[in-house]
């Protein structure tokens, strides 16, 4: 079963990636980092079909992450790994790139939740001991707050993801039928699923949330856990995945991985 479906999720992940990338390109034409929130509102409400393209970009990206995670989970249930260690590691790099890409997109919508998520990300890296200097790769002046996030989201991370995918599967070639299925799923999602509302910067909100895949981190931060501990915890699943290829007792590693996922989902739902 897994052997048959693993290729389907692989093709669908690639198809969603291509759709997310293609739908992101027109948004670049009207996104302005200095007037980020205003430009997002202009895209959404003033430019013809802007709302549709924005939703298409959002839902295809969400589906990209979901299918990438399903594809990763499927690998852990396989009897044996049929790819080289470097190919495996590139897949892990691709998953990390996808998570960071989605986070960047969340920040770039530039509403209260996006802006806060950006500030928190910078703060967390700033608190990460010897790696604190890395925060400068995200941090800009007040007027250009979104500029470096924009660079990462529109240039560096897509390039990293394309390279990782290419080295993982040695080609990026989406069959038309999978592209059609992915486009269909995205369009159905646009009409059936709720699209998160933008919270204007001047509104007096008492509670805002980050992206769903960072809910666990939000909970730990709310409970006052030290940032260093939280970031170490977040590296665990990726370290387990890196170890998995070489591990003799793969069942133990995959069991630990899924235990971590259950733990993270549990704290995220608090």
């Amino acid at each position, binding site marked *: 079963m897994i052997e048959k479906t693993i290729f389907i999720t692989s093709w669908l992940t690639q198809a969603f990636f291509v759709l997310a990338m293609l739908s992101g390109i027109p948004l670049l034409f009207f996104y302005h980092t200095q007037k980020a929130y205003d430009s997002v509102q202009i895209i959404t409400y003033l430019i013809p079909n802007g709302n549709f393209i924005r939703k298409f970009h959002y839902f295809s990206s969400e589906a990209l992450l979901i299918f990438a995670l399903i594809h990763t989970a499927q690998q852990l249930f396989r009897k044996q790994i049929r790819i080289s260690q470097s190919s495996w590691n590139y897949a892990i790099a691709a998953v990390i790139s996808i998570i960071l890409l989605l986070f960047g997109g969340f920040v770039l919508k530039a509403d209260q939740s996006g802006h806060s998520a950006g500030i928190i990300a910078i703060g967390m890296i700033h608190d990460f001991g010897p790696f604190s200097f890395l925060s*400068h*790769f995200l941090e800009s002046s007040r007027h250009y707050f979104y500029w470096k996030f924009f660079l990462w989201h529109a240039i560096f991370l897509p390039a990293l993801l394309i390279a990782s995918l290419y080295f993982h599967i040695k080609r990026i070639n989406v069959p038309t039928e999978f592209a059609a299925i992915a486009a269909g799923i995205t369009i159905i999602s646009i009409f059936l699923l709720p699209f998160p509302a933008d919270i204007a910067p001047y509104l007096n909100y008492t509670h805002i949330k980050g992206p769903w895949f960072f809910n666990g981190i*939000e909970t730990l*931060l*709310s409970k*006052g856990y030290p940032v260093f501990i939280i970031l170490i915890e977040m590296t665990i699943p990726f370290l387990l995945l890196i170890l998995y290829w070489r591990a003799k007792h793969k069942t133990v590693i995959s069991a630990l991985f899924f235990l971590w996922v259950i733990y993270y989902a549990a704290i995220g739902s608090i």
Partner: protein
Amino acid sequence: MEKVLSYLPLAALGTLFIPTLRFVIFPFGKRDKKVAIQRNRLISKVTKIDNPPMFVIAENETPVKVLNSHCTHMDCVVNFDANAKRFVCPCHGSQYNIDGINIRGPTKKPLHSESFKIEKDKIVVDYRFYDL
């Protein structure tokens, strides 16, 4: 000799690394600044200033305190809950009383207070950027 020369491109790249890194991580624009606020904007006890984010606390239209709006937990911008008369961080729920003193976690520190002086019809705030 040939082997040594083969490392030259690598050495050239290494030479570029430090200046490039220093260039990229330069904290441009993150400097303390003076911000002037017209006094006629102080229409209530707590006035929210958006850019840069701060709250001016006034009594009888006379400013008595200026609080930096950045939460001292993770730097999010706090909002003022007029009913509870508290500053509430929308990110992780830290709360501060009207004097900026932390009354509920996760933060362990009060809001930063900014120094200011009154000049005729405006107040001039020494706005500071804080490391967390």
